[in-house]
């Protein structure tokens, strides 16, 4: 065998250290914390307990999970419905226009996402751009309640995560050999049949990657629902933040984090099953 392969990979040491110190240790810390008891005033008591996990199954918490999942599913669905056709048409543009459009998709990343969500607040509030415009045009008399509801959070989520869907699906659609679609048409498939039997299966990896890249953050993003949802829409991310920072119930926050990680792993597992990818190469 090749001797080189048996040598200790020196170049990997910094990365290994980084992973252990900043990923493995914190995760273990969270996992341990979730099995401890909350102290009366501050911090935790070093005593094994399943209290936090037991409390998770109360209706208040269950409602939050359900709402989080529902929002994540809707966000994924809408970004796919908007992003896939968008990517499809971009891939059919001439070369130079394509890179320009993709640049425009990425441009928002150059600004802080918090700032961009404040932008949405300006658009959506009662005296905001949309309401002012609609009243000026005489479409409505009184301002619509656009901000601080589930719809506003959904819009913000779709807005923030759409680029991930576009970039994932675009890279798959762009690689699709147009002659495959032509072959399907030639063999008797109408436009829709060719799309469903060739284009979609051939770009499935990109679709799955985009869904994972959108779904996972949309479970955990809390600032969007904080800003656009007011105090009404409570998501898993908000809940964790509140438990850790406001209620100072660290074991509870840790337990919720563990549950969220497990759910995320489940999603990745489903992704691997569906896309036939062994790792996450399709995403990266």
């Amino acid at each position: 065998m090749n001797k080189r392969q048996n040598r200790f990979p020196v170049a990997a040491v910094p990365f290994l250290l980084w992973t252990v110190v900043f990923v493995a240790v914190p995760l273990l810390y969270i996992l341990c914390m979730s099995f401890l008891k909350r102290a009366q005033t501050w911090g935790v008591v070093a005593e094994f307990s399943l209290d936090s996990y037991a409390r998770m199954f109360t209706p208040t918490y269950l409602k939050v999970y359900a709402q989080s999942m529902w929002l994540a599913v809707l966000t994924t669905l809408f970004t796919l419905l908007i992003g896939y056709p968008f990517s499809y048409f971009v891939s059919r543009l001439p070369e130079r226009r394509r890179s320009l459009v993709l640049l425009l998709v990425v441009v928002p990343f150059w600004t802080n996402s918090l700032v961009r969500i404040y932008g949405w607040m300006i658009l959506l509030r009662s005296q905001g751009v949309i309401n002012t415009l609609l009243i000026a045009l005489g479409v409505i008399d009184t301002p619509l309640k656009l901000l601080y509801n589930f719809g506003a959070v959904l819009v913000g989520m779709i807005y923030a995560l759409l680029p991930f869907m576009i970039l994932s699906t675009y890279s798959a659609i762009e690689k699709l050999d147009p002659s495959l679609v032509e072959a399907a048409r030639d063999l008797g498939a109408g436009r829709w049949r060719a799309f469903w039997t060739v284009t979609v299966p051939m770009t499935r990896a990109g679709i799955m990657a985009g869904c994972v890249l959108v779904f996972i953050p949309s479970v955990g993003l809390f600032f969007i629902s904080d800003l656009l949802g007011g105090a009404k829409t409570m998501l898993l991310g908000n809940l964790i933040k509140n438990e850790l920072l406001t209620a100072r119930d660290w074991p509870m926050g840790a337990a919720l984090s563990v549950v969220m990680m497990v759910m995320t792993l489940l999603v990745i597992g489903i992704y691997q099953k569906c896309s036939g990818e062994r790792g996450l190469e399709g995403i990266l």
Partner: protein
Amino acid sequence: MAETILSLQNIHKTFGTAEALSGVSLEVEQGEFLTLLGPSGCGKTTTLRIIAGLESPDSGRVLLQGQDVTDWEPNRRNVNTVFQSYALFPHMNVAKNIGYGLRLKKTPKPEISRRVEEMLELVQLPGYGGRMPNQLSGGQRQRVAIARAIVNDPAVLLLDEPLGALDLQLRRQMQTELKALQKDLGITFIYITHDQEEALNMSDRIGIMNAGKILQLGTPDDVYERPQTRFAAEFIGQSNILHASVEQVCADGTLLLSFAGGRVKAAGTGHPGEKLVLSVRTERVRFGAESQYGFALPGTVKAHSYTGGMLRTTLLLPDGQELTVNGMGGGHSRAGVGESVQVYWNPACAVIVEREGTP
């Protein structure tokens, strides 16, 4: 002859500012093997795509089995294409690929599997139904692509340089197989290639294309022996292109022309003083002092080039022009470099490809 199955009527097609086809007309007969031969960019692939419905012409009509299909979607046309890149569906196995068209027609499942097996037998790939396209060699993919197209029983099968990606050995074998397949099935083939040998070997008729036009359409023998344009003469085989002027019209219907300080003969019509461009195939030029045809052209041997089967000799003519002679190689005695020789040819082999005033 058989009835016309496909006809193209004055097809024009422009991409941006580039004119791809400028007035292509073509009649294809039922059951024939027609090849469109031309250099890349001559418009042959565009012609094929217009027949398939993958491009629509700017003007002109496409008639298939007597019906005007110009505005029909590709899926409604009873033609199938074998793509240059094969375009097999990578996410389907061989059987699924071949059965794709049948599934779209809602053919019953047992019928599909029976037809797929039949096709696999036909293209000599029995038992390959479960393989994925990426597990096949180039030649095998080629066969699957053909099976996937002919299983739909098309009125016309379009083949876009189907053997282009194969090595020479396999190409030759597939040429023979394809030709045999076409004869057996009786399907009309429209075949595209830039390989003249392939075209001459397989076709019933060849259409020579250049710059968006069909320059000449005829049997392989016709287009090789009697090229009508200088392009056709130079694109297929090796020709000597001679600029000569008519001296007199002979009684036997040949022309006596002055060329390069000597006299040559050619078949055809003309009037004294007319300037003509002739094409003489290099292998039709014979060495000899006495010509049964009543002329002999003097020259000096400039160089020999030996290619095994053939010996190519370059002659220097009195006025400095060159003439190429292809003769049999092997043990023939040959004139040494610098020696004076004389050559002649059968006047029927000297074909007029251009006349003064016509480009």
